[in-house]
């Protein structure tokens, strides 16, 4: 008797003419919340500078937006220019000289190719937060020698 009445009871979503209608209210609620969150974090411009993948950037209070410039990335594996590895990190650490020949060659090539070798050019340095200043110092010195002496450091903005 009880089983028969349960079987006759319509399903939670409702059964009309033998067609099941799923209850969508909670799904619509969830999607509405998601939509509001995504609209809040919507950015028309996006990020003009993308951080390298194997990099942990430090956080900073700086709110200055990055402008498009040459990216020199100092990761735990090596020094890259716009994502292409130029020299492994071990070689930079082991070098006694401040000048990194491979990096200077690559930067000089870029400056010559784009005709900007006579100017003070901008470079955005992306550096892993765990690396020490001895590495950064060598990279900065080499960049300055290759006419890239207007430095900016890329950081994650603290919210």
């Amino acid at each position, binding site marked *: 008797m009880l089983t028969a009445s349960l079987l006759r009871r319509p399903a939670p979503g*409702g059964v*009309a003419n033998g067609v099941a*209608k799923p209850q*969508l*209210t909670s*799904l*619509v609620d969830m*999607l509405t919340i*998601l*939509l509001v969150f*995504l*609209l809040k*974090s*919507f*950015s*028309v411009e*996006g*990020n003009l*500078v993308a*951080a390298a993948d194997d990099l942990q*950037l*430090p*956080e*900073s*209070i*700086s*709110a*200055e*937006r*990055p*402008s498009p410039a040459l990216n020199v990335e100092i990761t735990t594996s090596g020094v890259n220019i716009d994502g292409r590895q130029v020299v492994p990190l071990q070689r930079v650490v082991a070098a006694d000289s401040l000048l990194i020949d491979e990096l200077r060659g690559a930067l000089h090539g870029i400056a010559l190719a784009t005709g900007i070798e006579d100017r003070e050019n901008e470079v*955005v340095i992306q*550096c*892993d*937060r*765990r*690396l*020490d*200043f*001895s590495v*950064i*110092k060598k990279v900065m010195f080499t960049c*300055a020698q290759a006419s890239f*002496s207007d*430095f*900016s*450091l*890329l*950081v*994650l*903005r603290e*919210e």
Partner: protein
Amino acid sequence: MGLATPSRAAAVESVDVTPVMNMFIILIPFLVSMAVFSHLSVIEFTLPPDGGTGRIADPETLPLTVAMTDDELALARGETILAAVEKVDGLFDFAALAAVLGRLGPPAAEARVVIAIDDAVLFADIVDCMDTCRLAGYADVGLAAGTNLDRTGETGPGPGGRDADR
């Protein structure tokens, strides 16, 4: 007349949300692709000018220097060490540095601070130090390599200069 039968009331309750769902399904992937979850910014900094003229600058016009060594932060102007803040549990004490900078008073509009850094200092600590200086009102922050702190010749307002701000 006009009173809804139970069957009509049930029909009114079930709103067709399929068009709304279709809109969500189009809109959400688009917004996910355009959303920015981590905001990047840059820190502009200057390199110290080449002081090759050989003339001795007025100590009052010399920029403030924050020396970051393996075991402490030292605040100096010219050759005079104003204060030293030792590490706490192996970490730089930037709150104490902020307090010391605050005690120096508000900086002039064009005031400059140079952070002189030893080789072993981590990049994250350098950025924290730059932030501390900026929060203290020093908009023009420069970086320099090497501290060359000579403790034997240091002078300061207190005994040895190191305890003046503790």
